[in-house]
């Protein structure tokens, strides 16, 4: 079989046109698979990065109170019960950051670095009098580490004037969400509590239910915990899941993924046409050879095996090519400025492909089904003519 397969392959590939059309078919199939992989990868990547960025800024559940500030005392912690993995108290206030005559509105968060890191998975190092700013805010205000940043915030008392506090920029932080990276700044909880004179009260609590570094596949679990927790707290407390703020985007991605998958059928159809063109071209161009080989002892079974090996070979080479092209596209997304997304439009600071084994298996198997269908048509065409009909038509024409 091996030598007859090689003989057949040599016959099929004999001639420049046959070789070229084979390469063109593989390239077009590779690009089609790549486009589909990259589109799904981008949408899954957007979804994944958005969720992970949100968790990096809010943990899994955010607790606020309709009354504003509240005490996270023992009874509060008792209410949390066994639901949480970690909890971090936060004092959060709107403020203005001013540097070199340029000012911008920010959300200033007073945090306990250790518990904040445990809940969000973000590494946050803060010393007294220091401020950690989002990466985009650092760029926006042209700040450098070590600069002194003026922050203006309300003192929290009626009729009082805004208070201006100076903080030394200790480092920058990246949540992964453009708006958060542009607006969020962190100081020690004690520093902000003293400025706002809120003592040991907080206005935001963040809860992590799971390891913040691991993705949550089933968002329903978070909802379940929220429902259970809501029963423990009085109605003045508001518990929201981490995606609440951007739920419309997550929903939009879901809808878009479905509609794009329909549009992508066009790309699949184009690729299938290319393969059909290859199969028909080979059948037309090489049918003399096929019929003669049948006459001297090549069975239909061998021809079918040959087609299967060739087609599966084209598919396999295309899949490997698509895998590497998708990888290349992912690298370009991460590193080439040309591929950087405008964060103010796309919410995220950067995009990356998220392709799981399931994505590869789905796209590759659908491609295989299509390519087998296309080649089967070519095989039927050959099978439906007798050897004599084929020989007479092909060699007399």
């Amino acid at each position, binding site marked *: 079989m091996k*030598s007859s397969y090689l*003989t057949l392959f040599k*016959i099929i590939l004999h*001639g420049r046109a046959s070789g070229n059309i084979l390469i063109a078919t593989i390239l077009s199939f590779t690009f089609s698979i790549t486009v589909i992989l990259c589109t799904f990868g981008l949408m899954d990547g957007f979804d994944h990065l958005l969720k992970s960025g949100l968790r990096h800024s809010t943990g899994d559940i955010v607790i606020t109170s309709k009354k504003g500030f509240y005490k996270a005392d023992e009874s509060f912690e008792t209410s949390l019960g066994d639901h949480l993995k970690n909890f971090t108290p936060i004092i959060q206030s709107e403020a203005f950051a001013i540097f070199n005559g340029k000012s911008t509105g920010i959300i200033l968060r007073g945090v306990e670095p250790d518990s904040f890191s445990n809940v969000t998975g973000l590494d946050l190092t803060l010393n007294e009098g220091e401020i950690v700013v989002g990466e985009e805010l650092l760029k926006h205000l042209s700040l450098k580490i070590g600069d002194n940043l003026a922050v203006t915030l309300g003192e929290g008392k009626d009729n009082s004037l805004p208070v201006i506090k100076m903080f030394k920029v200790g480092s920058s932080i990246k949540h992964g969400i453009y708006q958060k990276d542009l607006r969020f700044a962190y100081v020690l909880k004690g520093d902000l509590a003293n400025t706002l004179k809120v003592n040991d009260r907080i206005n935001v609590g963040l809860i992590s239910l799971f390891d913040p570094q691991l993705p949550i596949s089933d968002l329903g679990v978070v909802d379940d915990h929220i429902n259970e927790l809501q029963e423990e707290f009085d109605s003045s407390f508001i518990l929201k899941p981490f995606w609440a703020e951007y739920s419309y985007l997550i929903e939009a991605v879901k809808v878009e993924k479905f509609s794009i998958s329909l549009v992508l059928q066009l790309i699949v159809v184009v690729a299938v046409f290319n393969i059909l063109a290859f199969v028909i071209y080979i059948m037309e161009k090489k049918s*003399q050879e096929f019929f003669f080989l049948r006459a001297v*002892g090549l*069975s*239909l*079974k061998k021809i079918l095996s040959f087609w299967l090996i060739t087609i599966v070979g084209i598919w396999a080479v295309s899949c490997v090519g698509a895998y590497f092209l998708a990888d290349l596209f992912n690298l370009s997304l991460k590193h080439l400025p040309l591929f950087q997304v405008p964060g103010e439009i796309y919410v995220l600071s950067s995009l990356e492909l998220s392709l799981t084994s399931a994505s590869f298996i789905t796209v590759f198997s659908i491609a295989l089904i299509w390519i087998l269908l296309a080649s089967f048509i070519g095989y039927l065409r050959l099978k439906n003519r007798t*050897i004599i009909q084929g020989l007479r038509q092909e060699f007399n024409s």
Partner: protein
Amino acid sequence: MSFIRLENVEKKFGQTSVLQGINLEIADRELVAIRGASGSGKSTLLYLLGGLDIPSSGNVIINNKNLSKLSDKSLADFRNQNVGFVFQFHFLLPSMTCLDNILLPARISGANIKLKEVEKDVRSLAQILGVEHCLTKYPYQLSGGEQQRVNIIRALSLRPKILLCDEPTGNLDSKNSEKVADLLKKLAQDFGAILLVVTHDDKVASFFPRKIVIEDGRIIG
């Protein structure tokens, strides 16, 4: 005992009956000419004997194998290992050299064939037929006579038990036709093969001891 036996064979293409009620026996090593006018069904009969087609009804039994009952794969193996074809249109693949054309049946064979030995046989046969210099050439570089001789070498390359020739002299002048007919007869005798030659040329038919005449799909003599 007959090596080839046809029992009440009928072949139809759609509603048209090309062969009907064919009963025929051919002994081992027999040399037979099949004569008939164009469209009489002689080529169809030859293709049935070579397993290139199967009858609409009746049995084609060769060496105790009923070809009608063989699977496509078994039939393909049968053609490869038992039958050599010499066609009027030589069917040499233009994309390959003559040697590669000749070795094709060996290359695609499912049987355990030693390609080097086949090539050795082929070269010595090419020397006998005076076309050794043609082996490295492409078919379009050869004259009609040379192409036909290459065609014959390919048919004999796997030492078949049956050599089937469909109008092998159809494209040749009378002098060359006689030469080819004589050559086929000698080669078949040397190889110990049954030779069946379809021809409408009485002179060519006269080279063979047995003649079968077909008219309107029936054997009449």
